């Protein structure tokens, strides 16, 4: 902290970061009290795109809530689809065919790579480097094309259904995905050569934005933020769902607790997702992609249901209370970015403004999901 901040004669001023600022990834507003170039207090102000998704879950029928799942976190929408499908299958006791589960895992992991790619590109752009975004976007387009050929949409997917998936994947998708993996693996090394080894990036990330494991636990941070602080927690391993137990993959964990560690977790996760997709494609069984007995009028028995998945930004979980009618009594969505950003206030105290933006970018926030 500066000597000015500690003296009696300190003078502070207020500064708004956002809500419309290219470095804030959307409409996040951070009200900062500045002491010279150092942050005295930072307060994230949420709710600029609050759309009452939870209330919509109570007003719409179970099936009508589907399109909302693509509009929470628009970058890893398939993981959110997965959570809702899993939740209702648990409530209704539907057994999903194995092929559908594998398709779900393949598409969800492709979606995760795509999300991390954009996170990587946009993060470097936050720090002032424009070129890596173009490299990231090139690969991301390949994934979007692949996903478009099965799901029909490019961003706000509504692909899963209770008991399976909307339609089957074809051979073009399988060969296309294999070709993509072959092309993408050397590309990760290229990113490391181009970006990670860069001196400017290292200076701006190493040791910046320290997050102790305690503060992560305190605010309930999940995903790459938590794993960058040395805590090995991933829903795919800790509370396995779908066919993840049958696949062999590692959870990258870094103990440096700084922005570089969080960045490296994301980069390594892309490689692990490639491994998952490859294994899932090899193991992909034949068969139907939709369960046979899915009732037309969905009325889950009275009770309280919960399901959690690992989305690209951390743990996403849903809890619903059913009163036996055709819509929910209470729908609760727990989104990862909300807890990841809420620790910003405490962790950014005394930080340089330029470092705080590097730190905020390393949390990789997606605002629609935070506001819900």
């Amino acid at each position, binding site marked *: 902290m500066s000597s000015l901040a500690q003296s009696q004669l300190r003078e502070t001023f207020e500064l708004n970061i956002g809500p419309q600022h290219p470095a804030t990834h959307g409409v996040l507003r951070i009200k900062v009290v500045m002491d010279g170039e150092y942050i005295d207090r930072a307060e994230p102000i949420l709710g600029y795109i609050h759309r009452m998704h939870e209330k919509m879950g109570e007003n719409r029928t179970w099936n*009508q809530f589907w*399109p909302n799942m693509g*509009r929470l976190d628009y970058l890893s929408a398939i993981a959110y689809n997965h959570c809702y499908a899993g939740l209702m299958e648990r409530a209704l006791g539907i057994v999903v065919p194995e092929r559908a589960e594998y398709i779900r895992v393949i598409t969800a992991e492709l979606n995760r790579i795509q999300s991390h790619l954009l996170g990587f590109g946009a993060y470097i752009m936050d720090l002032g480097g424009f070129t890596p975004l173009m490299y990231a976007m090139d690969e991301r387009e390949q994934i979007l094309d692949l996903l*478009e050929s099965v799901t*029909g949409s490019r961003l706000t997917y509504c692909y899963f259904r209770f008991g399976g998936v909307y339609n089957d994947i074809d051979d073009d998708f399988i060969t296309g995905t294999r070709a993509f993996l072959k092309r993408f693996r050397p590309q990760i090394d290229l990113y490391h050569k*181009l970006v990670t*080894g860069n*001196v400017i990036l290292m200076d701006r990330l190493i040791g910046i934005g320290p997050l102790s494991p305690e503060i992560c636990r305190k605010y309930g941070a999940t995903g790459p933020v938590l794993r960058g602080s040395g805590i090995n927690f991933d829903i795919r391993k800790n509370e396995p769902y779908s066919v993840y137990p049958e696949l062999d993959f590692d959870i990258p964990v870094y103990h440096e607790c700084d922005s570089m560690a969080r960045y490296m977790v994301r980069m390594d996760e892309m490689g692990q997702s490639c491994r998952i997709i490859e294994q899932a494609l090899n193991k992909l069984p034949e068969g139907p992609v939709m369960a046979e007995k899915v009732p037309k009028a969905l009325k889950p028995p009275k009770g309280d249901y919960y399901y959690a998945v690992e989305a690209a930004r951390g743990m996403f979980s849903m809890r619903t209370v059913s009163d036996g009618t055709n819509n929910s009594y209470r729908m609760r969505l727990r989104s990862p970015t909300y807890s990841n950003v809420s620790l910003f206030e405490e962790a950014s105290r005394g930080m340089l403004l330029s470092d705080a933006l590097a730190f905020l970018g390393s949390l990789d926030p997606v605002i629609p999901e935070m506001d819900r």
Partner: protein
Amino acid sequence: MSGYFKDIVTGLKSLVVGMQITNKEFFTKPITLQYPHQSVKMYPRYRGHIELVKDPETGRNRCICCGMCEKGCPSGCITVKSEKKPGVKGKVLTAYILNFTTCSLCGQCVENCKPEAINFSNEYNLASTRREDYIFDLLQKLHPEGVPEPEVDPELLKKEQEKEEAAKKAAAEKKAAAAKKEAAPKAPAKEGGESKAEEKS
């Protein structure tokens, strides 16, 4: 001081490595498509706005006007208008209005449709500055040259006409009877017994 020179050396090294990659891109083919002149490949599963399916046998839509798409739609953007026409089995679709401004392309309507009468179109060039341009009548879109009249089944028409006539006759008889009944109390008291006997027969 040695740290200063070390920084310069490592900085230059990372610059060279980065520029090597950038320079390589000078010799690769550009991946950008010049959009208005070239366009990207559209996938058959692409979800554009919904459209009515033309039945290749009859050349008409397959809609049975059950309204399941309307009921399943999360945003209530579909309105199905139908009417009963003489000599045609079931209801006849008169307008299928899609308010595309609120549609979220979830596919619930397509999934709910039993006769597979609707499907996703591949249309994506829909730019407009007027909101009204996004309220489509899909029936007009299916038949831009004019909606053909439904095929009339003569047997059904005959049956219906007979039924209608019978109904008319019955209604007329009922009306006459009611009129008579109404007239009866007004009639002179001495003729009361006779009229009652008539009614019984």
